[in-house]
């Protein structure tokens, strides 16, 4: 899923047209929207729950709700943020219903000095399976809310203002939390970048 700003104008117009058709009950249009956005919604929920089966169920629930509420979406260019907002509510409700907190809050690392981190090299961009597992583990050490905010930014490409809406936070808090999440993530991954073989 891409933020509206990253998309070509034609793609955006195409999505608006799909949305309008879906709102009038066109099942093919809703299917097209689902196929376009479901992978990102699932990934966001998988990262939130840290459980693929839970993400499956929550993804379906998200789109059932989205289908019923399509006409309530005011800004057609904010479909991604709207869907992720629904997904976030589904996640919070599921977590509350289970009565347990699936996420173990990560350790804080407020005193991290950025200068101690190595500078990534172009080779570091290659995400192999081992590094992908390390990345998942590192993300797991970031507190759930903070992690969600970070991923809404770096994975889903939402602008800070839309992240504030999805998370129900003020804009300064969004910026602060994302910054802290980044530092925590980098601290965890620092040993694996900057001249890896």
């Amino acid at each position, binding site marked *: 899923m891409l*933020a509206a700003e990253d998309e070509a104008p034609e793609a955006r117009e195409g999505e608006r047209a799909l949305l*309008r058709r879906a709102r009038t009950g066109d099942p093919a249009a809703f299917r097209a929207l689902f196929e376009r956005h479901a992978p990102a919604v699932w990934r966001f929920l998988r990262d939130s729950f840290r459980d693929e089966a839970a993400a499956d169920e929550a993804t379906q629930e998200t789109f059932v709700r989205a289908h019923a509420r399509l006409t309530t979406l005011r800004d057609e260019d904010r479909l991604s943020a709207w869907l992720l907002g629904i997904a976030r509510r589904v996640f919070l409700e599921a977590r509350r219903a289970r009565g347990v907190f699936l996420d173990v809050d990560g350790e804080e690392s407020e005193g991290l000095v950025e200068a101690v981190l190595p500078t990534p090299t172009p080779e570091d961009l290659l995400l192999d399976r081992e590094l992908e597992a390390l990345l998942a583990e590192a993300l797991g050490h970031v507190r759930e809310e903070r992690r969600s905010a970070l991923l809404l930014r770096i*994975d889903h490409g939402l602008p800070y203002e839309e992240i504030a809406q999805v998370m129900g936070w003020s804009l300064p808090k969004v910026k602060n939390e994302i910054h802290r999440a980044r530092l925590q993530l980098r601290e965890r991954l620092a040993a694996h970048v900057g001249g890896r073989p």
Partner: protein
Amino acid sequence: MSFSCREQELDALLAGELSPADAERVRAHAQGCAACAHALAWLRLERGWMAQRARRMPARPALDFSALEARLASAGARPTPAPGAAPHRAARIASPRSQWSHRGVMAMGAAAAVAFIVFGVGQVRPVSSPEVPWSQEVLVSGMLQACVDPSGEAVAALEDRFSACLIASPALPEY
């Protein structure tokens, strides 16, 4: 990074969110600032990793539209048309399945009404049996209802109402 270096601006630069003038200013600054170049390298790394991660999506049942379609059909879900919006042709011409569903619901309603009359009039049971405590009677009626309508929602609602697991309960007397 000095106080004038802001990671959010570098982030916005990579996201293409800056105006051309601001993008040029931030880019020029980053070229001569070691701290910003360092931060920019990390931001690029994050974006690159995320893009690769997104491309490695596993095949999941939830991403199959037919699963959602079945769920929407069972819920009888239709988006509420926007005010003034004409329904799509595909929606106006009801599909065979939706027509069947509509007729099926009507048939089930009629059958339920007949059953209610037959069982309600023909099988008058004592309102309360002295042998069977009230709570057990309620439990039994709950069991019967769950058997007639074995949907997960109905069972869950009953279980929630009685704060007990009805289906698995071994405490019921034999009749």
